Each structure stands twice: as structure tokens, then as C-alpha cells.
């Protein structure tokens, strides 16, 4: 066994009620030289308030991404952790595991890597952290044999996330797990072989609570919603009002409705003006037993969310107000939409420009025209207020709208 480095700074992170990563690192350091030196380098960083990793190029046979290469800049002091690469592996949707598969991962990682596993990274990957260049292929082969595949890194489609959804949540408005797999597994080539302008992330949230934070983190956010009326069990509403009181119900349910579409009636039942409900989820979140989403469920799709680099944080913007996701045709439509968008962005995006940034640069109306989607009021918070626009084809555009309306009316 290697002599253990002194870690007076990290030692202070072993006390306190929250589980300590340092304690686990030390346990590994006793049997793994790489982790012993890793602890040394981490302590060195704590002393000097500096990071000491640089990137490089490491991948597995046939793929271009998925491994995050890390070479130490202080390898002379900590030679055993000179190479400390991460393998990003895609988990099942909803992050479900049985103990058998987790133990197999542990055995593989003790054999090929450091024994340090992060569950999970910010993009949703299992992160197998700490692998020498030599062992990357062997570790991946063993994990791949279990039916697990490499995640995304670099300018590519990235690993996706979906909420627990239909597996354990009554708010679920679509089959998150199936949508997640169907979309992602249509883009494995774009995921494994980085060749896009920059990263592209899909996220799937089962309802407007958006537990996956898709509106701020996903280039394409697929969020569950419904078109018909909220389902009400009036006997449960009455039970709620009788237990919590009318005042509580008014203060915390009806008056919190953003469109004031709820009324608490004299007999302790509730009425909802569903035409004006914006599907915010608040009342359903508070009255979990009495209220639930309607039955005509589907998704809203938003595009272009991202964090700061490079033009500042952007929310996703609605590009499809409602889409059913039930039949094979529905799923094919979703994949085709994603393909159209990614193709347009791959063609028109600048290097290192996220999809939302491209839309910001070229304008949303231009983007819609480019991908062949017609503008709809639900895409906007408000129509333009700036009169500097040339509108000589107004009549043609107005005719298109009338025609679309007529077609819709015909379908009904």
C-alpha cells in the first residue's frame, strides 16, 4: 500500500451530519494507489485554491466522445493519479437500478478504475471517475457488455434525463421513459461522434412542474400537459376543505391560481373555468388527492434553453403548444421534428453556438420559417410592439392563417 498523503483540509470535511465524500475517498485510497494520489492532489488544490487538471483526447474504439480526459499538471508530486479520466455512461430513464446491476458496476470499476462513481452528473450520466488511459477501453467493454452505452461529451447530442414520471407519479402526462429512449436512440450517431456546432440536450418532464428543469437546461424540452378539464373528485375536495378549513383553501389554493379560474363554492366544492386554466399545476400540487390533470394528455415542446455561455441564460420557447404522444406515428413525428431542428442548426449555427443562441441571432420568426413551423399565439408572451417591420405580404400571411383555421375546423 502506498503511503497516504496528509490531508488536513479535507479531514475537516469528514465531520458533520451530511455523508462525507472524503471518508469514501480515504477508504478507496487504502486499496488503490490512484485514489491515494488523487487525495493528495485534491488537498493540494484546497491549499492553493487552484485546479490542476488539463484535458486531452481519449476515446474508445469507434466513438469520438463520452470520455472526459484528465491529465494532472502536478503528476510529478502525485504520479499514480497522473491520468484520471471519466467515462460518462447513460443510465436508464428515471435513474432506476436493481442492486445486481449496481454491484456489477462496482466490481468492474474496482477492477478497471478508481472505485469512485458519481451518481449522477449534471447532464444525467453515471460518471465513472478515475481511469488510466490504458484501462479506458477495458472498462468500457465490460460496461458495454452489460447493455450500457457511452454518454455524450463535446459538440454532440448529450445524455438526456427524464423524471420518475409514470413509474410513480400521478401527474405524469406522457410515457417519459419511452419518449426518452425513442428520441435518444434515434440520435446515437450524433451522440457518439461529436460533429455539431455545440452541445444539444433533450430533457423530458412529465408535467409542468418540470422536475428535470428542462426549460432552463435543455435545448429541446418535452414537458407533459393536457388539453381537457382538470379531473376533480368533489368528495375529496370537501374532505380537504373540512380538514384544512375554508380560509386555508382560499389562501393556498383558489387565490393562488395565476388566472383566477377557480372558485370555492358555498358547499365546499370547487369550480374551475378550464378554458382559462394555464396548466400551472399549483392546485394539483396542493390537493394531490382531489385534483389531477385531465385525460387528454400530451406534451408541450420548448426550444433553446441553456445556461450562461455565451450570451447569457436563455429559457426554452414554445415551438409546439400541444402534441399527442401515444401512437408510433406520434413518436415518429417527435423524432422528425428533432431531426429537422438539429439539421437546420447544424447547417446554420456558428461554432460553439447553442441552438437558442442561433435563434437569438437570426430571430425567432426566421427560425420558424427555416424549420417550416407556422407561428402561433401560444409561442409568444405578446405580439411585437415595435412598428419597424416591413409587412407587404400581409394578405398572403393572413390567408395562410385563415386556411389553417378552416382545415382545423374541418378536422373537428
Amino acid at each position: 500500500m502506498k503511503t497516504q498523503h496528509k490531508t488536513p483540509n479535507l479531514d475537516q470535511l469528514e465531520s458533520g451530519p451530511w455523508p462525507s465524500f472524503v471518508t469514501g475517498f480515504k477508504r478507496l485510497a487504502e486499496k488503490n494507489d490512484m485514489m491515494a494520489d488523487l487525495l493528495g492532489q485534491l488537498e493540494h488544490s484546497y491549499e492553493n485554491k487552484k485546479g490542476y487538471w488539463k484535458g486531452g483526447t481519449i476515446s474508445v474504439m469507434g466513438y469520438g466522445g463520452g470520455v472526459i480526459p484528465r491529465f494532472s499538471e502536478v503528476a510529478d508530486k502525485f504520479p499514480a493519479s497522473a491520468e484520471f479520466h471519466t467515462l460518462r455512461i447513460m443510465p436508464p430513464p428515471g435513474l432506476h437500478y436493481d442492486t445486481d446491476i449496481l454491484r456489477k458496476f462496482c466490481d468492474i470499476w474496482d477492477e478497471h478504475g478508481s472505485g469512485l462513481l458519481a451518481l449522477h452528473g449534471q447532464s444525467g450520466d453515471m460518471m465513472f471517475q478515475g481511469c488510466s488511459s490504458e484501462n479506458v477501453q477495458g472498462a468500457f467493454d465490460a460496461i458495454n457488455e452489460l447493455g450500457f452505452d457511452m454518454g455524450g461529451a463535446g459538440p454532440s447530442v448529450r445524455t438526456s434525463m427524464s423524471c420518475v414520471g409514470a413509474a410513480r407519479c400521478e401527474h405524469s402526462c406522457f410515457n417519459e421513459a419511452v419518449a426518452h429512449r425513442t428520441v435518444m436512440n434515434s440520435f446515437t450517431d450524433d451522440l457518439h461522434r461529436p460533429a455539431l456546432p455545440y452541445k444539444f440536450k433533450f430533457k423530458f418532464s412529465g408535467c409542468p412542474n418540470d422536475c428535470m428543469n428542462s426549460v432552463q437546461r435543455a435545448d429541446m424540452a418535452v414537458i407533459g400537459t393536457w388539453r381537457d378539464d382538470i379531473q376533480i373528485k368533489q368528495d375529496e375536495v370537501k374532505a380537504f376543505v373540512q380538514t384544512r378549513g375554508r380560509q386555508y383553501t382560499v389562501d393556498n389554493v383558489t387565490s393562488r391560481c395565476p388566472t383566477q379560474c377557480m372558485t370555492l363554492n358555498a358547499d365546499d366544492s370547487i369550480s374551475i373555468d378550464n378554458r382559462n386554466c394555464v396548466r400551472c399545476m399549483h392546485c394539483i400540487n396542493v390537493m394531490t388527492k382531489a385534483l389531477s390533470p385531465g385525460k387528454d394528455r400530451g406534451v408541450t415542446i420548448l426550444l433553446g434553453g441553456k445556461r450562461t455561455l455565451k450570451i447569457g441564460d436563455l429559457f426554452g420557447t414554445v415551438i409546439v403548444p400541444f402534441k399527442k404522444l401515444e401512437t408510433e406515428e406520434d413518436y415518429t413525428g417527435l423524432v422528425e421534428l428533432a431531426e429537422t431542428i438539429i439539421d437546420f442548426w447544424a447547417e446554420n449555427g456558428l461554432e460553439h453556438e447553442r441552438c437558442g443562441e442561433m435563434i437569438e441571432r437570426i430571430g425567432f420568426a426566421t427560425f420558424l420559417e427555416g424549420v417550416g413551423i407556422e407561428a402561433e399565439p401560444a409561442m409568444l408572451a405578446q405580439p411585437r410592439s415595435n412598428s419597424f417591420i416591413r409587412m407587404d405580404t400581409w394578405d398572403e400571411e393572413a390567408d395562410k392563417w385563415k386556411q389553417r383555421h378552416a382545415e382545423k375546423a374541418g378536422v373537428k
Partner: protein
Amino acid sequence: MQKHIRQAIESGVPDSFSFMHPLMRKNYGQWDWHERPRPGVLHHVSLYGDEIWTVRAGTQRQMDTDTIRELCEIADEYADGYVRFTIRSNIEFMLADGSRVASLIDKLLEQGFPVGGTGNAVSMIAHTQGFLHCDIPATDASGVAKSIMDSLHDEFINERMPNRVRLSTSCCQINCGGQADISINIQHTKPPMINHDLVANICERPSVVARCPVAAIRPALVNGKPSLEVDEKKCVCCGACYPPCPPMQINDPEHSKLAIWVGGKNSNARSKPSMQKLVVAGLPNNPPRWPEATAAVKTILQCYKEDARDWERLGEWIDRIGWQRFFDMTGFPFTRFHVDNWSGSRYTLNHSTHIRF
């Protein structure tokens, strides 16, 4: 003889159904309602009448294999050998038998895993890699998360906040930690220090120039070598040039500080999703415990807890009481840095006479 190289099986995202607790598989899409019998526990009932109890516990996220094996043993004993993880690295054990919830909680506490993070609680911090694995970190991530969660432990195991509180930390200004009710992020305060001897050999200069959000970088000949120079008046010290060009060192042990942002919200409940806003900057990057950042987070949480109405998220509470009162209550200084100068920032200014006195 050459070693045979195995071709990857491009299987993509694996199917989740075989890894799902059997009761979840059986009742997939058929859940009817839920309640929270106590902090850290969810009780779901399906349309078929099946019931499932979930016990949620905090983890350190960065786990050694023995910790994972320990969690597996608990899952085998109590949860039919299945677990799942949340987006904030909490682990969930699903039980078919509600009578075993209490003993599972005892077991988890005995092994050092706090039970909570449900409902109107402070959940685990979404965080990044920091010194452990990032190539551009100005601070650590796991250590910051550990320090803050130690001091917010009581708010993780109880549900006594007005609404849920989501935290994040980021170890560079790209902010991979993400939007949150409270976000603790590094903020560089000095332009990059350029090692001109290395730029030509390491950096692809046009792509570095293109990466700058404020066009402050231009090619230059320094000491006879092709390099880059930074217009320090324009530079916003974001560090975006550092990943493609490490000789442009942005991290500064002394001058890279922590800043705290509040009011990020991704849920559509009540108000539309919102971005986080700056509260305080200039906090020292002070390992191993970052006491100043932790104290600032606690100040914000205390004011929120005392003053917000039930179900108001942190940002919604501030929208109701106004920023003036928020700064008065928390005691943080209001500075010219709180005024956004970026494109589109006119919409963050007050275009009305709506003012609280």
C-alpha cells in the same frame, strides 16, 4: 499478435423497465394520488389500489464502491433489491410494505444517510466537479456542497420552508450547476493572465477570439510571437476563453470570489419560470468550509422562512415584497453591479411608478 479490439455495441439508452421496482412496473401510468406521511417519505396509491412507500435519503453523490454496496445491501433487505436516484443525487428506496418504513429510516440514519428532501424542504445541492475533476475550476464543488448541507441538515430532514428550496453551486462562471432558488457561483474579478510564450502552440486563436462574448480578445504579436491580447476595459472576466486556451489563466486564488443569486425557478406552478438574480458578490473562496458563503445562504433562507407565505417560492416571495425590502431584510448592500447592462436588460428596469416606501 495484435490484440483483438472489440467494437462497441451502440445500444444507446437502456430500457428502464427491467430495473424498475415490480410495483412501479405493474402500476406504470396508473398512479392516482400521493401524500407525504412524514418528511423524507412519499406514499403513492394507484388506481388498482396498490400502494408504494418511498424513502428518500441524501448521499454524497461522489461515492466509493463500498458506499454503493452498502446502499445495495439496504435495498436488498428492505426494498426488494431496487433503488432509484433523483436529479439531486438523493437515493430512493421503494417499499411495498408500509410497516417497514420506520425500520428502514432507522437503518439509513444508523449508516449515516439523512432522510428527507421531500415537499417543502431544502433538498441536496445540484453541483459540479470542482477541483476533483474539472479542468477550469476556481473552487471545489463536493466540498462546498458538503459544507452547506452540513449546516442546512435540519432543513433537509424537515419540511418547514414556505415551499421547496432548490440549491446549486458552480465552480466557474459557465455555471453548470444550473438555475436554482439559491445559487452559489464563482465570480472572477480580474481579466485572464496570459502566458504569451504558450498561446501560439496551444490555442487555436480564431476560435478563442470567437468565444469571447464581448469581443474583447484580438490577435496580437507579443515579443515577436503570435499571441492574443485582451481589452481589459471590455473584458467581463467570464473565463470563456480559458477552456479553449489554458494559457489565458482566469482562476485567481485571491481574486476569484463567490456570488449568490436567488429566485431561479423552473416549475410553472403559479408564476412562469424565472431566472435567478444577483444578491451578493465578493464572498471569499474559503476552503475547506466556505463559512462566509454558508452564512449568506442561511441569512437568505431565514428571511424567506420567516416572511414568505405558504407555497411562495423564494423568487415569488421577493416579487411580492419587492427588492428594496429584500435588501433591507437581508442586510446585503445594493450596488451598481445589481443593474444589468447586458442586451435586453431594459426589461429588468422599473418602467412604472410601482414603488414600495
